[in-house]
């Protein structure tokens, strides 16, 4: 089976205030289809950059990135949004829900980019919220939900279109331990039960234990990686 994410000789430099900051110099990295990988490392090590590159939110300066069978470095900027909508679901640390919409409307947002009709979109969004255990909170707005519930809505939004890949940037960063555990359990369930390929960025060692594989980065270089022994409780 081909890898879900394949990065070859990828380099990325940012320019901030006239200063060049090389985050990744030459990275080779793979995530197998169906895998659940946690990217770890200190701040500035390039974790989020890898996530953004894999999700087509940014272009590398050099190298090749193939995700879900598409070389996204070859895709024009105008084609990337459509590609993202079809293949990637994002989960962010700050949840990034649209505050003026209800939980259900937030989950229905990416479904607008599919050919589904309104009834099917509604059905699919309700199902996604049911999967994350928020059937009772569909009509609530983000402000009326707890942090954990907001992140669950964000996960429901990420899986609503049934993407190949879920990319989560510090999904437990703003949550307390118990809530963080339940969110990670949910992601693990999505990986084990539905077979979603998941790549998360985290500082949280306990959260990373829920993944199958941990990859440690430092200054844009993979310094260590290991497979977790088994599913953590």
């Amino acid at each position, binding site marked *: 089976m081909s890898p879900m994410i394949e990065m070859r000789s990828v380099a990325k430099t940012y320019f901030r205030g006239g200063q060049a900051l090389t985050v990744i110099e030459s990275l080779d990295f793979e995530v197998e289809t169906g895998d659940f990988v946690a990217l770890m490392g200190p701040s500035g090590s390039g974790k989020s950059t890898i996530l*953004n590159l894999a*999700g087509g*939110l*940014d272009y590398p300066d050099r190298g090749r990135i193939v995700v879900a069978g598409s070389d996204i470095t070859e895709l024009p900027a*105008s084609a990337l*949004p*459509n*590609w*993202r*909508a*079809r293949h*990637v679901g*994002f989960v*962010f640390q700050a949840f*990034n*829900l*649209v*505050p*003026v*919409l209800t939980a259900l*409307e937030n989950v229905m*947002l*990416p479904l*607008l*980019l*599919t*050919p589904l009709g309104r009834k099917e979109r509604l059905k699919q969004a309700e199902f996604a919220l049911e999967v994350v255990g928020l059937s009772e909170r569909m009509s609530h707005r983000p402000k009326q939900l707890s942090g954990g519930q907001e992140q669950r809505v964000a996960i429901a*939004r990420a899986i609503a279109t049934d993407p190949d890949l879920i990319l989560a940037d510090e999904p437990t960063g703003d949550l307390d331990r118990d809530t963080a555990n339940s969110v990670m359990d949910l992601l693990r369930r999505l990986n084990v039960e539905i077979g979603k390929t998941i790549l998360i960025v985290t500082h949280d060692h306990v959260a990373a234990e829920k993944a199958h594989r941990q990859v440690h980065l430092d200054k844009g270089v993979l310094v260590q990686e290991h497979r977790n022994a088994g599913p953590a409780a």
Partner: protein
Amino acid sequence: MSRTPWRLVWEHLWAHKVRTGLTVAAMLVALFLFCCLVSIVTTVNAAVTSAAGNRLVVQSAVSLFVDLPRDYQPKIEAVPGVVRASKLQWFGGYYQELSNFFAQFGVDHQVFFDLYSRDLEIVEGPDGETGPEARAAVEAAMAADRRACVIAEGLRSRFGWGVGRTVHLIGTIFQKNDKSSWEFNVVGIYRPLKSNVDNLTLWMRYDYIQEFLDGGLATGPMGVGVYVLNVAEGYDPAAVVEGIDSQFRNGPQVTMTTTEAAFQAAFVSMLGNLPMFIGTIGGAVVFAVMFTLVNTMLMAGRQRAHEGGILKALGFPNGVLSRLMVSESLALSLLGGGLGIALAFASQHSMQVMLGSYFPNYHVEPRTAAYGFGMAAIIGIIAGVTPALLQARLRPTDALRSEG
């Protein structure tokens, strides 16, 4: 496939009620002013465009303010092609106080309503007659009573006058020697059919004033302001004009005969560049509010950068984000503009009362409303495009980092 989450537009409008309310109010005021000011200009011009082609006006070649001799009338009527002629004498009185000023004219009642049969309609006669009988009844009543007058519907609404009422006017040009007011008995009410006839005018018998002047009971111009006449079918108005003016080339007053349209145009030109000035102010008001809306939408765009980042991350293309921004801007401008235009229509009557003396027949034309609505749409698009372009330039990662 990229459908637009239109609900976001609605939610954002409701989520910022104060901002929405103030912006709509600004657009409302601007478009209301625009429609009112442009309507003043179109009202002034309408008097020219709706003037009858077969009607001529004879005035002094020196100035409109110089009278013509009374004995010119039979000579004018004798010119081939002249069907009927009436004196038209500006009375210049007011009712009770100066602010109650409106137009009054002394006319030859025997021919005046024939002259203007296509321009005004008698809607109520002396005994409540309506329809075609009303005019005959009014003509008979005018013939029977030297103090008779006919008033416009606008005066009935403004002062509550009706048929049978005696109206007291204080003369400014024509003044009785005993300083008493002039009395006129209302015998009929007319409705203008065209914009060249004012809806706030009182028509009285010229000979009634003439009697006072000739009897030494009142002071005022002894002559006639202008003569108005109809050209018979088949006659060339230019030849009639020449026929009249050539008679009086050696005085005592040289005449200048023009078509009614040219007369109205000359009257409008006495306002100088006022119509253009008013039109420019209307345009400037709309232009100023455009900057307000652009500023509002730029702020909204900045506040919405984070949300734009979310939508971009989810896969919405820049086109959808632009549509949302422009739609929100259009909703604000069209709602405010639409309300302003509606208010301009709704306030027509009040404006007619307020401006009637200066701009008779003030009215908002549908094309003014359409023009205003078009302006509102253009403003909405311009105000929406600017933040949409800025949002489109933002990379998703930068947009997500921005403060929501």
